[in-house]
């Protein structure tokens, strides 16, 4: 736990104090809840949400109020967002809620809770682990050479994905938005940029999860999976069963079900709340709320129209709906990436502005040709799933290990060259 706190302090030397207080408050509330009652847990959760609100949403809320009332209500210094606050706060809430519900016995040793919240591999950008997922390993973990090696392989896969692929896609994305800022973005570059971002966000985020899972395995922890080929989803609902799985489960277990789920006749209201919160969780911006809201509407539409049952009877329809899902996801990523709704609107209209073409140094085909191998590998990693018999083959695993070791050295050389950008989900 100490190393995890040092790791956090390296990135957030001042706000590590807030982090330690969060750990202490949640551990202590769990401890005294058994004597003083469940209301202590509720207070702890309110405090967690309040801290998250102050650091993540207060600036934004005050800004909106100022706009609405056309006045300068209060002036205060811009509050910096602590690294990983959305992730560790959700883990802390999950621990307290599980103690409240009797799913977890309150831990007497603060190091147990501290290690659970602060465990450095997944501290910054998830997966959002539940206490029950790693409870046994906190008490009694074993490091074996096989698990360690598997962890190294997984870590290297994530590392290479991030440095070689995700950051290469970032070059195309940055260029697309740069052209949009400078003048007119043609349809070809707009689509190329949108596809590149679709790959970038998947590979960037899943790479972090791979590295977290890999590092966890090296230290004897089994961190749950966070992605399952999301771009192969057969519907929007299926997409969210495959994308950022730990967040979807968290909202299901700690928001949707406590609200009544689909049992109290307010199913659509509950879905709306969950998706607006999902959008808001990603950041204090109208873009994220609209992005989350759009998914909420699509999920409700699929549920109401029984889309998954209807379209999946025939293979052709199923595939058509799969493509439709992918296009929707791609378009909604534009809302997610753009700084505000005006830019998002301009970008989306550029995607259908077929009369304009970027040439010279902004020619999309130059970027496409130069990144063709990276794009191909991104597509393979996103859309192709190897059969289990190949994945479990010893020769395949040996080859994979060798290739990843080679790619690791290549990735380090990319880092030395300075060709990298921070993880996208660090912002959340």
């Amino acid at each position, binding site marked *: 736990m100490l190393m995890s706190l040092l790791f956090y302090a390296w990135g957030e030397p001042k706000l590590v104090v807030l982090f330690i207080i969060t750990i202490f408050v949640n551990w202590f509330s769990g401890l005294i809840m058994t004597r003083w009652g469940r209301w202590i847990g509720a207070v702890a959760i309110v405090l967690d949400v309040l801290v998250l609100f102050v650091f993540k949403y207060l600036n934004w809320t005050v800004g909106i109020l100022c706009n609405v009332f056309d006045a300068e209500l209060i002036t205060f210094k811009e509050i910096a967002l602590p690294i990983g606050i959305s992730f560790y706060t959700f883990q802390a809430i999950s621990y307290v809620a599980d103690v409240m519900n009797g799913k977890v016995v309150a831990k007497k040793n603060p190091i147990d809770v501290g290690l659970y919240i602060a465990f450095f591999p997944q501290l910054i950008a998830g997966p959002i682990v539940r206490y029950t997922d790693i409870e046994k390993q906190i008490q009694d973990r074993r490091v074996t050479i096989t698990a360690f090696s598997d962890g*190294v392989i997984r870590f290297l896969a994530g590392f290479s994905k991030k440095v070689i692929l995700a950051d290469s896609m970032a070059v195309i994305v940055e260029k697309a938005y740069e052209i949009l800022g400078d003048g007119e973005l043609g349809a070809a570059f707009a689509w190329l940029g949108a596809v590149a971002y679709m790959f970038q966000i998947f590979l960037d985020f899943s790479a972090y999860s791979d590295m977290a899972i890999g590092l966890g395995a090296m230290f004897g922890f089994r961190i749950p999976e966070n992605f399952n080929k999301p771009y192969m989803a057969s519907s929007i609902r299926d997409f969210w069963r495959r994308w950022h799985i730990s967040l979807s489960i968290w909202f299901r277990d700690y928001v949707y079900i406590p609200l009544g789920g689909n049992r109290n006749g307010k199913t659509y209201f509950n879905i709306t709340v969950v998706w607006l919160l999902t959008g808001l969780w990603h950041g204090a911006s109208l873009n994220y709320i609209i992005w989350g809201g759009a998914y909420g509407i699509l999920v409700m539409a699929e549920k109401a129209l029984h889309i998954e049952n209807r379209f999946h009877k025939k293979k052709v329809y199923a595939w058509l709906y799969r493509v439709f899902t992918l296009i929707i996801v791609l378009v909604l990523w534009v809302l997610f990436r753009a700084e505000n709704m005006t830019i998002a609107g301009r970008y989306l209209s550029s995607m259908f502005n077929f009369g304009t073409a970027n040439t010279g*140094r902004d*020619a999309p085909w130059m970027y496409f040709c130069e990144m063709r*191998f990276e794009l191909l590998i991104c597509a393979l990693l996103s859309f192709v799933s190897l059969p289990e018999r190949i994945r479990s083959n010893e020769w395949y695993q040996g080859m994979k290990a060798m290739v990843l070791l080679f790619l*690791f050295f290549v990735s380090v050389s990319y880092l030395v060259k300075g060709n990298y950008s921070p993880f996208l989900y660090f912002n959340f």
Partner: protein
Amino acid sequence: MKKKLLFIFSGVFVVYIVAMMLLTIVFSFIDFKLYTPKAVIKNNLTIELPFINTYGGFQRLLDKQTIEDFSIFKNTFGQLVVPYREVSIEETKTRLNSIVSICDYCNGIGIPTLYLRSLLPVSDVKDLPYYGIDNSHINFNNLGDLLASAEIPVIDLNSDCIIQTIDSKDRFYYTDHHWSTYSAFETFLITADYMSSFQGLSCDKRFLNLDNYTKLTYPNSFLGSYGIKVGKYYTGKDDFTVFVPKLETSFHFIGYDSSRNIMIEKEGDWFNCLSDREKINDPNFNNKHSSWTNGQSIEYSIVNRLSENNTKVLLIAHSYGRPLAQYLSLCYHEVRQLDPQKGRFTGNFLDYIDEYKPDVVLFLVEFEGDLIGEYNTEKAMDVNTSYEDGRH
């Protein structure tokens, strides 16, 4: 078998990480400063170069035609070139004013001038991948028109029939932004011939004959300013060539810094006195171009002790000028070079000319059709005219 393989695999990874950590700790300990592994690597080229080579090798494997975020291109011969941005005519005019002022001033006191138009690295945009994105020719043509209207004597090395005899692949290094020894040497021949024929300046013509030189080549020894970004596996290393005179020579060299303090002073024959032989012979030293005229002096003087004439040549030039000055020194009594690049020679050019009284002033100040340098010429602006007065 699988277990053994995994054991080796994990071992390599762990050893690598531990080695990086140890390296970081050792360097932090030596310098009493907390370093990151990246800082340790970046601060030491010997450690950094294998990483750069790995990176460049992988870029080649991926068949990349551009590097450094689409800023450097590999042309059809495998040379690295930077497509140049377009410079506005107004900007070019403003920059040319200073050159015109110096030329006007020299003409006023009877010193001839000669402006050498640098070779363009991109001789044909079809040689570039994703062709049609280089603007150096536009800049070159705009500047050419302005030079013509200013009536400055010009040698255009791009159009001259002699320079065209050099194969376009050999005009520039593959890994560097500088022109090759071949180009510099040919320019020397053309320039000396021109100054002798049209400006009546005495010159030791024995050195205009290639038979009086020995060609020394140091194969695969030069990794220039572009190549150092991607290492030797991306486009290979350049051969470094020097034409060394066979005849007896004796020189005195003095190099100055920006405050006119002597940085280096040497005596000896042409090659030993004017070239940094240590840099040339060191296999780990990559930037061989900096061996010309003993490196990075902002101002230097080369005196030819065996010269049969008293001709003094002032060369106002960026780093292209170093090999040219070194060869010109063979034919004249003294050659001096001032580097006008930003932050280098900051003195007044006209005062310098007044003090030195050269027999000719040469300019080699273009890079990819654009004018390089900052020129302090206040005196000329007062006494004489500027380009924009419309006298030219």
